[in-house]
């Protein structure tokens, strides 16, 4: 199986992309939305778009502190401000309504700093719990497989694959300066669920081959067993990812700004997940085995 044969190349590619993601975290940082930082945001639309400088002027005049105005949609703006009171918001909407024809407030949200901080903690805890639950479940599901490498390795390698799958969307969002909001975290958690699903199908095949080899007393090199299992599940992995990608691409093309970034995160995650279950997880199984054999 070419994947096992050239495993160093595929692992190097994954390693490089992961490093690049981490590097972009340090260089560009993450753009946390008000969901996490606390603050207020306002999406407004006009029938004809006024100059952005004009809107920026009005916002700066009415609201103290750091504000951000961005054009969205065909003729709207997204305005982000620190946490403001109802009176301030009222004053701001009145001023904004004078800037252009057919003013409408599409979306208003405001998050107190306490809730933002709490959510940040909760998101982190949720991700850690998902990862732990998966290690233990995989180790449990493979508990009878301890030859040639222990069941815990399957769990740990599944986690390495998951870290790969989560790091890449984070890196992409960091490079593109996209908002990290609740939906992004939801997407990450969904990617965790999807990707481990993919990885387990391959591992499962390895487990089955190992058992049948034992029953039939066939001696086979572990690398070969993994290669054959990968071969057998290859079409399935590609086809399942393909159908999921078709659906996500349709969503990305058709849906509007509301969940655009969410779909983008899922899309990147599914691609990363497919890559990792074929080109990272199984090669790592073999790498662990070879290292053990050398000792």
């Amino acid at each position: 199986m070419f994947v096992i044969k050239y495993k160093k190349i595929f692992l190097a590619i994954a390693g490089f992309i992961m490093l690049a993601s981490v590097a972009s975290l340090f260089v560009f940082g993450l753009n946390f939305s008000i969901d996490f930082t606390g603050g207020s945001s306002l999406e407004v639309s006009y029938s004809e778009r006024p100059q952005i400088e004009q809107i920026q002027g009005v916002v700066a005049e009415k609201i103290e502190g750091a504000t951000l105005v961005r054009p969205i949609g065909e003729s709207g703006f997204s305005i982000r401000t620190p946490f403001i009171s109802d009176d301030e918001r009222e004053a701001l909407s009145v001023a904004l309504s004078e800037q252009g024809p057919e003013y409408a407030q599409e979306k208003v949200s405001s998050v107190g700093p306490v809730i933002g901080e709490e959510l940040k903690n909760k998101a982190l805890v949720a991700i850690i719990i998902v990862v732990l639950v998966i290690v233990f479940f995989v180790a449990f599901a493979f508990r009878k497989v301890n030859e040639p490498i222990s069941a815990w390795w399957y769990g740990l390698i599944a986690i390495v694959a998951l870290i790969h799958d989560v790091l890449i969307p984070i890196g992409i969002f960091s490079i593109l300066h996209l908002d990290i909001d609740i939906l992004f975290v939801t997407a990450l958690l969904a990617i965790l669920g999807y990707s481990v699903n993919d990885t387990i199908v391959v591992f499962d095949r390895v487990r089955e081959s190992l058992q049948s080899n034992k029953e039939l007393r066939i001696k086979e090199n572990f690398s070969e067993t993994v290669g054959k299992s990968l071969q057998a599940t290859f079409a399935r992995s590609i086809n399942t990812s393909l159908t999921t990608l078709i659906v996500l691409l349709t969503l990305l093309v058709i849906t509007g700004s509301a969940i655009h970034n969410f779909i983008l995160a899922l899309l990147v995650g599914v691609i990363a997940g497919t890559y990792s279950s074929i080109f990272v997880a199984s090669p790592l199984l073999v790498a662990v085995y070879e290292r053990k054999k050398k000792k």
Partner: protein
Amino acid sequence: MNGRRIGAILLLVAIAGLGYFVYSSEKENARFPFKFGLDLAGGTELIYEADISAINQNEIDTSMQTLRDVIERRVNLFGVSEPVVQVEQASIFAGGGSEYRLVVELPGVTDVNEAVRMIGETPVLEFKLLNPNVELDETGLPVNPDDAFIDTGLTGRYLESAQLEFLGGQAQVASEPIVVINFDSEGAELFAQITRDNIGNIVAIFLDGQAISTPVVRSEITGGTAQISGGFEPEEARDLARNLNFGALPVPIGLVGTQSVGSTLGQDTLNQGVFAGITGLAIVSLFLILWYRLSGFLAVLSLSLYVLVVLSLFKLVPVVLTASGIAGFILSIGMAVDANVLIFERVKEELGGGRNLREAIEEGFKRAWPSIRDANITSLLTAVVLFWFGTSLVKGFALVFALGVITSMLTAIIATRTFMLALPAIKHFWLKTGFSK
């Protein structure tokens, strides 16, 4: 006709029946319409934090429940259709301890300021005793205003009703408007005890933190009624009586977060979501039929069953659909194919190994099962954590995702299997894949 064929026909009937149910229940006034979240239907969500510092640990739950009821009464008064008012307990991992929140969802209300006004007008009523030991400065005012009064525990929580009356009565010109409040039995007892113990003292009546009336207790009051005379204008007194009736808050609350989505934006998102779902389903079906031939067609049948079962569940449970929930559902269509693909690949392998059709199908299902099971269990575990993580937005996604995972697994192993086993003896070509002969 054998049992398998009858089973397959029953499934086809089920598809038709569910399809009719989903379609017909979207007519006006039908019993089971889809329920849409605020981001799709348009509306406002307000998050209040309850200040429970003054409340006994074991009374928190009751107080929060009363608070919820009071706010709900108030919201209902404004004619909002299907409002949701719920108490949320948020724990903060870093600091320990927990906070209580009240989440108010107002579908159709897209003006945040109006919504805040609607709820914010509810008065907080408290009865407090003048502290006899308070330190006074030269001007006769307390040094520390917080020490001037002592909580009695008697609050608007114990209020049964309030009405406007005129002191002196008989339509005299000089009559003063007052608000008469009636306590419930518990409140009446508390009030009697407070007045009995404090004859000659001042019991101040606080409204929203301001002392509006500071009467001196002359005798024990046992009837459970009290008068508030705060030098009101008649309109003021009438509004106060009305607001007290609608509910004096047992717990002070403060606004900590708001969300509001305009109804056009929501409608657009929904239309796009539905269109994306149908398009995605059509492309996936086409792909399945082209690549997996007859098996692909059967998979499309069980995929239709899957979609219809999930849509019916959305209606019957009911699940409140949000933008991310619909995305979760559409994503699950992609994943629902997975179990089918696993099975087909396995059946093809078994056919290649020289088994006959029936054996290959049975064996293919048996061997695909552990993979399907383990893969779905991990997805379900993730959904559970997501649900726990949830704000309402994420919970919607998690619930849809979990329903999708379970239903897709069941339809694949029941429906696809039944359909395949009902097949007559056909050439193996129809069950193979891709470019193979």
